[in-house]
């Protein structure tokens, strides 16, 4: 198959195998070892996308993770993933990719007309353009979103699995280039637990793309030997295809492993990606450095790429990125790149050196190849719109701020390679809290003082000499292992020596190349030009953080890897200050995009969150219960009979409880066993009412307040023995109440001898309710005297129910005669089934939480979290009767604050709408007048609202300002643009004397 730009030989690709792939429907072929980017170039496909704002045609700028232009949509259907960097996408047979950000096609894009309307899109254009009127903002958002933005998210569900994994190590080495490999080797030799992670598919880093030698042999042979040693060691975990994306406190790092992204689809049960959360004793960052683009006119044309990228394409992938090249640089890097291109068969037309003098040693080597070197000159313009056809080269003035000697000469070429110097990759170091120092020689930042246990080595530390990088890596790996408590026995591995390179000649920092009329791009992905940055400064922005946000420079998915230093340089130049005076923007995780799938891991679908099941859950399911989440529990909401809607089912369940017998699974109630000689005193302090006089065998309702005096929880607590209580809490607060009790017991009242133990899970609770409850109990229990005299309301008895050892509590949340039967949880289903069978003659009806809510509201019982919201005192609820005036308790002082003591606070009332069939929505506002149009002051809101088959009408409860004194008044319930009149009543609607529960 024709791959016209494939070299005849060389590269780390497997030429014996051919892989088919398509890009925008065009079928092409590549080889194993290719990335999508290298395969596209091999096929002569240089146009990879359209730019974000101006829809300019774009080609590949880089060959690695810093690529800002080559973002594609990979795969189809539910597996489609937008914004994949073509330079990281490994080729597999059958790969399908599409370009993004173009319509109708990549070659003919209508959006490109915005490029013609450039004056309309200056820096911060959306702040300026899409302002008024506010009513149009949603429409503006639609326009902006259609025009701008990167790829589309797939609509179909992702069929793949994503994994999470925790790990711990002594030394985490980030980056598998020469320095990282040396660090890992030296650390591993001490026996320390080592993880070596690298973003690429292969370890080797810069060695994969260069042609250096070590000790006279190809450097990759050395790397392969180290890798074999590490792979064989039992204490090293090698993680290729793994990007460390976040560096958090206490050496906690997040890494994304692309387990199966290089395959057509994952094997059975294999995750596509795995998110690692690593706690590392020591970290060695060998994250390398990235080459910077030069900022000249039309520097974004397809065919303009980084010199190191071109080198990588020829050396690693066996691809010529063009036929005829010009190179331009402000440092030495372009020279070896020119030689590598020439060796691969690319005709090199010229090398342009911004420095006044060329590098003489390199010059001699280029001379041998017949490559012309032009010093003191710059590329000031690019010919060709969809691809480079030539460049203009002009002479720079001495200060580099202008062009001298005319517009210069044009050189024909289809590839322009640029090197604007090197930026150490310090995103992770900066995330770790490390300080960055400006290095004048590098014209970039290098690592300063570290805050966490981290070392930076190699090019990331601003070192570019291979021998020195290897030595620094070895030393850091060894020192990191030592600091984690591991020492090597015997001598260390031999340190290899690289071939001698010509001594470096100082670079000529130049952040903005003069001349030319085209746009000079600083941020390719965000489409930010030098002019945008200059405009931002002229408009008054001084802080680099503000300039960043205003222009969006550095805010793309590439985190401005190729942008940031140039942007700072342009801003500094415009402000006429030095770069360190401008400072730098903050680096934040993630360094590289992390998919939502990886973040979610296996916490999707049924595993999103724990769904706690009672022992009777299976029965509820089998019997058609509709469930409601309460905390993490799933509770039956109601049990619809065939053909019944929710209201019909709830009404039936409510009637059964009032007229005969109903049964509820109350297992989820929180239960706390409280023991100790001071248990009664302890309860006396945490509840608002008195507990010392409670008799053994009796139960009492209690209310707990927070320190601010607001209702926190409630429940019935029974005295099991002199120093032994069984407390119940609301379902949702079981854990927080236990924590609250432990907090007071352990830290404030250690003198009280009391232990609290959760026993929620030990007990299953079946609550039977209704006039026939005692008759049913009599059938199931023969060792407890059930007569009202012997076993009255608000007492408990130990007995045997349905053959099971049980604690029976005669308490009631429904206002009916009720028994809450507690048995060991393993027997819960057994009890439930026995109760249902025995209760059949009474038409026993299982009821869910909604019927329970109606029943309790009819008799005026509150629900914490429904009638209360953390701002409600017991006095607001009219529950003065439970607030002791004699003793002290948590929250008591707060009740006498002027605000909690005032008498016009929202207070609990009943509400009966004029229309008995109107059920007002919970949360609706209470207003004084009949006109609901705003502005109208709210006097409170509806907290509960139901239809009651017992009352034959609807009823509601609410919190109403000064409501305790307003019974009989008419207020209005505002909702849906109307105001429904309702009479204020006492919050109790049924059996006001409470005689039914006591019966």
């Amino acid at each position: 198959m024709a791959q016209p730009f494939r070299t005849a030989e060389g590269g780390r690709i497997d030429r014996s195998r051919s892989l088919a792939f398509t890009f925008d429907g065009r079928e092409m072929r590549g080889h194993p070892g290719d990335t999508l980017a290298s395969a596209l170039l091999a096929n002569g496909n240089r146009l990879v996308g359209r730019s974000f704002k101006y829809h300019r045609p774009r080609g590949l700028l880089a060959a690695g993770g810093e690529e800002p232009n080559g973002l594609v949509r990979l795969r189809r259907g539910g597996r489609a993933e937008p914004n994949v960097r073509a330079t990281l996408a490994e080729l597999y047979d059958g790969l399908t990719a599409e370009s993004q950000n173009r319509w109708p096609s990549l070659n003919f894009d209508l959006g490109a007309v915005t490029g013609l309307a450039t004056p309309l899109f200056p820096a911060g254009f959306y702040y300026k353009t899409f302002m008024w009127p506010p009513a149009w903002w949603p429409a503006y958002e639609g326009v902006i979103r259609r025009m701008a933005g990167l790829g589309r998210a797939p609509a179909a569900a992702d069929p793949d699995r994503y994994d999470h994994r925790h790990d711990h190590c002594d030394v985490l080495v980030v980056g598998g280039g020469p320095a990282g490999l040396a660090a890992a080797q030296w650390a591993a030799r001490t026996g320390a637990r080592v993880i070596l992670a690298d973003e690429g598919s292969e370890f080797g880093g810069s060695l994969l793309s260069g042609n250096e030698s070590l000790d006279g042999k190809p450097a990759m042979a050395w790397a392969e030997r180290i890798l074999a040693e590490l792979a064989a060691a039992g204490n090293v975990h090698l993680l290729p295809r793994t990007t460390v994306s976040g560096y958090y406190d206490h050496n906690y790092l997040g890494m994304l492993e692309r387990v199966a992204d290089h395959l057509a689809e994952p094997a059975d049960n294999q995750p596509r990606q795995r998110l690692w959360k690593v706690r590392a004793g020591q970290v060695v960052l060998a994250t390398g450095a990235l080459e910077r683009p030069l900022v000249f006119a039309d520097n974004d044309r397809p065919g303009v790429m980084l010199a190191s990228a071109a080198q990588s394409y020829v050396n690693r992938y066996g691809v010529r990125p063009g036929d005829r090249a010009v190179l331009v640089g402000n440092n030495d890097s372009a020279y070896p790149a020119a030689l590598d291109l020439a060796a691969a068969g690319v005709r090199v037309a010229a090398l342009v050196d911004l420095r006044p003098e060329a590098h003489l040693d390199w010059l001699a080597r280029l001379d041998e190849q017949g490559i012309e070197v032009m010093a003191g000159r710059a590329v000031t313009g690019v010919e060709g719109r969809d691809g480079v056809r030539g460049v203009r080269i002009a002479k720079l003035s001495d200060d580099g701020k202008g062009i001298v000697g005319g517009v210069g000469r044009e050189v024909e070429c289809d590839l322009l390679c640029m090197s604007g110097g090197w930026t150490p990759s310090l995103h992770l170091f900066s995330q770790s809290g490390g300080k960055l120092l400006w290095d004048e020689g590098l014209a970039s930042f290098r690592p300063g003082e570290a805050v966490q246990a981290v070392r930076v080595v190699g090019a990331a530390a601003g070192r570019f000499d291979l021998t020195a990088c290897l030595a620094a890596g070895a030393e850091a790996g060894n020192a990191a292992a030592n600091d984690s408590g591991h020492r090597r026995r015997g001598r260390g591995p031999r340190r290899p020596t690289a071939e001698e390179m010509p001594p470096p000649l100082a670079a000529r920092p130049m952040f903005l190349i003069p001349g030319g009329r085209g746009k000079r791009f600083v941020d390719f992905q965000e489409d930010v030009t030098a002019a945008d940055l200059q405009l931002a400064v002229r408009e008054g922005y001084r802080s680099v953080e503000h300039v960043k946000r205003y222009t969006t420079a550095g805010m793309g998915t590439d985190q401005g890897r190729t942008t940031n230093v140039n942007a700072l340089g342009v801003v500094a130049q415009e402000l006429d200050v030095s770069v360190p005076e401008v400072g730098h923007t903050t680096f934040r995780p993630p360094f590289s995009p992390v998919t939502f799938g990886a973040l979610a891991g296996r916490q999707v679908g049924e595993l999103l969150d724990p769904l706690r099941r009672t022992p009777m859950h299976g029965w509820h399911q089998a019997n058609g219960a509709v469930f409601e989440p309460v905390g993490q529990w799933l509770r039956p909401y109601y049990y619809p009979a065939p053909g019944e809607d929710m209201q019909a089912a709830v009404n039936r369940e409510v009637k059964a409880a009032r007229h005969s017998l109903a049964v509820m699974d109350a297992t989820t109630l929180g239960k706390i066993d409280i023991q100790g000689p001071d248990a009664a005193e302890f309860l006396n302090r945490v509840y608002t009412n008195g507990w010392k006089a409670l008799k053994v065998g009796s139960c009492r309702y209690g209310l707990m307040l927070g320190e601010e005096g607001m209702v926190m929880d409630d429940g019935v607590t029974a005295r099991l023995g002199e120093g032994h209580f069984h407390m119940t809490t609301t379902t949702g607060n079981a854990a927080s109440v236990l924590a609250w009790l432990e907090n007071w017991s352990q830290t404030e009242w250690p003198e009280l001898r009391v232990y609290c133990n959760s026993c929620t899970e030990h007990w299953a609770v079946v609550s039977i309710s209704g006039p026939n409850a005692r008759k049913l109990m009599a059938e199931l229990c023969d060792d407890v005297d059930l007569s009202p005299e012997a076993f009255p309301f608000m007492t408990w008895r130990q007995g045997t129910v349905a053959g099971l050892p049980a604690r029976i509590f005669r308490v009631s949340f429904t206002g009916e005669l009720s028994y809450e039967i507690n048995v060991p949880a393993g027997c819960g289903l057994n009890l439930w089934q026995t109760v249902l069978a025995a209760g059949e003659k009474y038409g026993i009806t299982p009821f869910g939480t909604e019927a329970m809510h109606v029943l309790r509201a009819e008799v005026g019982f509150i629900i914490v979290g429904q009638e209360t919201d953390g701002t409600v005192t017991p006095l607001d609820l009219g529950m003065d009767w439970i607030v002791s005036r004699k003793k002290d308790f948590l929250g008591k002082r707060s009740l006498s604050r002027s605000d909690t003591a005032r008498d016009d606070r929202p207070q609990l009332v009943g509400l009966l709408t004029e229309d008995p069939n109107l059920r007002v929505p919970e949360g609706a506002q209470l207003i004084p007048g009949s006109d609901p149009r705003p502005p109208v002051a709210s006097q409170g809101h509806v907290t509960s609202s139901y239809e009651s088959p017992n009352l034959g009408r609807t009823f509601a409860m609410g919190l109403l300002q000064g409501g305790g004194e307003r019974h009989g008044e008419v207020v209005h319930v505002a909702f849906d643009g109307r105001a429904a009149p309702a009479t204020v009543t006492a919050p109790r609607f049924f059996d006001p004397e409470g005689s039914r529960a006591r019966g």
Partner: protein
Amino acid sequence: MAERRIRHSPLAHLHLAARVVVDPGDAGARMSERPPRAQLAVRGDSGDKAFVAAFKAGLGFSPPLAANTVVTHDGLAVFWLGPSEWLLVGEVPGEQLAAALADRHHALVDVSDSRIAIGLSGPRARDVLAKLCPLDLAAPALAPGRCAGTILARGHMLLHVLAEDSYDIHVHRSFADYAWRMLEDAALEYGVAVIDGGG
């Protein structure tokens, strides 16, 4: 009425018995439901020598007093849960303990039905657990014979390290379904075999 206890497992709906294999083959992870065992929560002050002595007398052996430790003796495992908290699992000497501790401030709570245990073993058992638990499972604190009260995904577990590649995972009954599903889902990559959990 005579006592008729029929216990239901919180994993009964997963029909694990039908999946039990004798030979787990090359499955990287083996999972089992352990038989239910009596459990007793014990509270008392480990700084109170008289309490510790009474606790020892009630057990017939010394209780664990250091973090992450378990003492196993004649079918009874005593887990250290905190400076004032232990969990007894197995042949619980309830009455003996109550008598021994009668004079010291303490609490004994029968929590036999609170938790169940899931067995996880096999060459990839640690990898499975590392997906759901943030602790360093290779740390000396979690050597065989040790325990930890910790996190299992978004729930809680009491982890008992039985051997290098073998764990008992004690979870609250209401979380049992979640814990099993999470563990099995995490193990799928390595292959899962359900094995007999012992009698």
